């Protein structure tokens, strides 16, 4: 079984971004970039399936600028077999990415595509579902447990009231939630090994997909600030404030 894993290069989760003064976006010049944390979980899951003898090959893919190669190398160091970068400087929105991934999935004939449930930059939570829809295959979003057996994927999902388990015929799309696994620490020997793995670069045109953005960002602003609060001395003072000042209890 061949697994395709899609990853995204995003602002590192520890960075608190600042809105640009001209309100055209957030300032990401000179900030640390990393693999989207949910995608790291996706790569780890695919590599574990290969180590368990279920997957035969793990192909990691991304779309974006030249520097995305670093993100792919990280995935290769975790244990993916080879990588594909769909290189473009254009703004990519989830529908465009889903179309790119569909083209790659068709070409690779993947039996399973694993993605993070959402990217921590645009917080869209769309690409996996859109990909499943375009491929007309089933999906299991927000996965916290994946079991592959008898040509089926049985997936436990994190839903609002707790957990839900569904069974999918393959091929299928799975999107990862936080508790699916804990990605391994990437070791230096594996980083060195990853440098020798194949990283193919293609252009969106070669895949024949329309990546034009559909949404126009008119402006990006700071959220309204909360006014500074007060520190209270003890529990009695807190109760007094809540009762008489905030009047919420």
């Amino acid at each position: 079984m061949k697994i395709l894993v899609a990853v995204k290069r995003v602002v590192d989760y520890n960075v608190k971004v600042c809105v640009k003064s001209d309100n055209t976006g957030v300032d990401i010049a000179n900030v640390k970039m990393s693999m989207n944390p949910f995608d790291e979980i996706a790569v780890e899951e695919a590599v574990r399936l290969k180590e368990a003898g279920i997957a035969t090959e793990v192909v990691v893919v991304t779309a974006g600028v030249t520097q995305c190669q670093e993100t792919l190398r990280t995935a290769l160091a975790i244990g993916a077999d080879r990588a594909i970068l769909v290189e473009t400087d254009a703004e990519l929105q989830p529908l465009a990415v889903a179309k790119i991934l569909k083209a790659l999935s068709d070409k690779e004939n993947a039996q399973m595509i694993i993605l993070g449930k959402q990217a921590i930059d645009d917080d869209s939570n769309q690409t996996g579902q859109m990909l499943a829809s375009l491929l007309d295959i089933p999906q299991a979003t927000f996965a916290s447990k994946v079991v592959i057996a008898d040509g089926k994927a049985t997936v436990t999902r994190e839903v609002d009231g707790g957990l839900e388990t569904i069974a999918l015929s393959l091929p299928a799309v799975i999107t990862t939630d936080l508790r699916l696994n804990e990605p391994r620490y990437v070791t230096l020997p594996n980083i060195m090994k990853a440098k020798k793995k194949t990283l193919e670069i293609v252009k969106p045109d070669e895949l024949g997909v329309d990546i034009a953005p559909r949404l126009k960002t008119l402006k990006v602003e700071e959220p309204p600030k909360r006014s500074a609060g007060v520190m209270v001395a003890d529990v009695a003072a807190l109760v007094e404030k809540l009762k008489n000042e905030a009047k919420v209890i």
Partner: protein
Amino acid sequence: MAALVIAEHDNQSLKVATLNAVAAALQCSPEVDILVAGSGADAATGVAAQIAGVRKVIQIDAPALADQLAEPLAVQILSIARGYSHLLAPATASGKNVMPRVAAQLDVAQLSDITKVVSADTFERPIYAGNAIATVQSGDPVKVITVRTTGFDPVAATGGTAVIEKQAAAESAGKSAFVGRELTKSDRPELTAAKIIVSGGRGLGSGEKYQELIAPLADQLGAALGASRAAVDAGYVSNDYQVGQTGKIVAPQLYVAVGISGAIQHLAGMKDSKVIVAINKDPEAPIFSVADYGLVADLFTAVPELTKALG
């Protein structure tokens, strides 16, 4: 043109998040219909028909729709999508699951987690865990939207006089099947609908301490229980308690954060609460930067004291 809201329900009752989505829909179009796609969902349909401001409730009933699986649900939405300018669902686990499937089939973008309707084609939505608010305009003929419930006050659950129209279910392929569900049973209010929330973090040290300290305080306040990601990861409570960027987004009247340091990802899920109280022994904890009332104290003594003071 009219807007269609996808009801969130369990066939019997309607989830309140539907009312927030209707509120957003009414800002997009004066004509709002609701789709109740389920199995034996007459009760939920009846409840939906009473929602204020709704024109029509479309009921599609089929066994395949019993568990709201994304594939058959998307097929039903697409079968009636023609004629609507806006398709909306609450940004809950279910809405997030199904709506992008619909958008992709219509070859349109989705607007996720909107917090404000600026005009019929322009919306505000948070990005970067709520550290920035983007105003985005869609040029697509149909707007597929998920609605962040905390951004819209719910419409009244009663007072409406919508007609109910039954439609036959469209065929779907059945490539996915429901296996089972483990839902947290609780007599406490639902997290996303609660007026007061008491949340516990890693400062509690264990699941036992969470139950021993947080639960009684919540009961005293009639509050729902929440938790930080760290507390969920450490196994103190189950995943559905998680408040944050990738968990539940809440905005209660009162949010009490106990032993929660206040990572960006947690703040993203609760900083729109009306009043925030933080109890933490570390005076430098980032949670104090968003708290209206901060108490630097050892939670193991302060929380029981607070519970007692409220009794």
